[in-house]
């Protein structure tokens, strides 16, 4: 019995999202009197991986195969299942990001383990194993009971503060033998949005809507975002009109974010927009209409 946590490997490095995950996993491990193992897939260095110990991982398992630098479903499943077997993990924690959302349900299905995606609380162990998550695109919360021995959780980023508590972890290699069939998905090209703060985990977000009148006026959004070190977002009509790229669109049919500060400029605050942002701790609305739905 132990807790296994899949961390996000960003070109060999780990960021706040991963530290939060490890800390979350270790909190669960401590309440169950067991240990935490972090799993790293793809290239990284021992010096980087040891750091995961500072946030609570006693051990790091490393499947070092460069082909794992990109998400490839079947190979990821195989590696994660091997790690689960190696550590006798009962609880598997994954990031609620494009990798975690893709692999966690596959692992859960394979193990016939109960799954909760986008968790925002530690499990309540008083009445079984109950985890809180958003439903109805942030318009409500649900308490989900996971009724199987093995459990899979994806954690919504920015749900918990990150603290350094532990010591560097020991790193162990885990050998997994892959076949060509495990890499059925071939990577043709990758376009990274460079030099930008990823929206999903940003603490400060500056967002623009139709009130800005056109893409030529986005300078004010960019200036404010760069002055604050904030990520940029937008409302749906703005992405639909191709004023801004799709990945910036937040709301019911776009991304869900929960930054400390969300600055909405020229956005009315329609219910579908609010669905993606009402987890924000503070919202500043710049609007000429005091009756806008945001208020």
């Amino acid at each position, binding site marked *: 019995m132990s807790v296994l946590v899949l961390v996000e490997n960003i070109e060999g490095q780990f960021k706040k999202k991963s530290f939060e995950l490890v800390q979350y996993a270790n909190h669960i491990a401590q309440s169950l009197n067991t240990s935490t193992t972090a799993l790293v897939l793809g290239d990284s260095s021992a010096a980087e991986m040891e750091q995961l110990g500072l946030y609570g991982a006693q051990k790091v398992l490393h499947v070092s195969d460069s082909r794992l630098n990109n998400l490839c479903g079947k190979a990821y499943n195989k590696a994660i299942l091997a790690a689960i077997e190696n550590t006798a993990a009962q609880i598997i924690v994954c990031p609620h990001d494009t990798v975690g959302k893709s692999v966690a349900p596959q692992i859960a299905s394979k193990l016939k383990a109960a799954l909760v995606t986008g968790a925002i609380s530690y499990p309540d162990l008083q009445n079984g194993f109950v985890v809180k998550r958003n439903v109805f695109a942030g*318009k*409500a919360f649900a308490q989900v009971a996971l009724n199987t021995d093995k459990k899979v959780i994806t954690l919504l980023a920015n749900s918990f503060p990150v603290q350094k508590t532990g010591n560097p972890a020991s790193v162990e290699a885990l050998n997994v033998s892959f076949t060509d069939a495990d890499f059925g998905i071939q990577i043709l090209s990758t376009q990274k949005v460079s030099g930008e703060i990823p929206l999903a985990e940003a603490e400060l977000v500056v967002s623009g809507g139709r009130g800005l009148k056109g893409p030529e006026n986005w300078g004010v959004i960019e200036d404010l975002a760069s002055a604050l070190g904030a990520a940029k977002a937008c409302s749906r009509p703005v992405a639909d009109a191709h004023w801004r790229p799709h990945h910036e669109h937040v709301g019911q*049919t776009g991304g869900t974010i929960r930054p400390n500060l969300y600055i909405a400029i020229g956005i009315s605050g329609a219910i579908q927009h609010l669905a993606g942002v009402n987890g924000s701790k503070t919202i500043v609305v710049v609007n000429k209409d005091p009756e806008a739905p945001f208020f």
Partner: protein
Amino acid sequence: MKILVCISPVPDTTTKIAFSENDTQFNTQGVTMVINPYDEWYALVRALELKEADASNTLHLITVGKPDADAVIRKALALGGDEAIRIDTDSNDPYVIASQIAAYAKNENYDLILCGKETTDYNNGAVGAMLAEQLDVNYISFASKLDMNGTVAQVNREIDGGEQSVSCALPLVLSCQKGMAEARIPNMRGIMAARTKPLKVVAPVEVSALSQIVSYDLPAAKTGVKMFTIDQMDELVAALHNEAKVI
């Protein structure tokens, strides 16, 4: 090519969310059900385009739901598709839904299965991935573009902080999002044709739920909105710094 699109009925996005029976049930009274936007705008429309490009493609739509889902599936058929299947059960546990679809799809040998990236009610984002695992086929999530090159799919997918083009041989399960296609409105001819298209009702297989929603609650009511005028920007910055402590 044989295509399956998974259609989930969801409450209309303007629905006021309320709960009943001691906050353990979603209150469906007066709620209008619609096709999950991701399933309609992206998965279904892209599948229709593939069928329009090659008439030899077969297109099936599947819903796991009770008879009240029929109206939603007829609406989907009005956009297009050859036949619909409804598996006669309901659950908010994604494992149950995926297992039901997998049990049906196993005997049908679909080449391509399209899902939405998530439902707008329970937001699990899990059914497609579980379905792929149960059918033992490749799964590509968050697809924003799909082109067929013979029996190889070329897909653009979202990754953290960017986008990636990938290719994969069929069979394949995809979760679809923005970019895949543009929303369509059904026309009169489609609506009339949908009335006579086959809607097959299939008995569910035996599967138990692995998780269960034990209760719901609503976010705390908004507390005090503070208004600042254009000449009070210093006060705004001070409030963010000293009171909210966010900058």
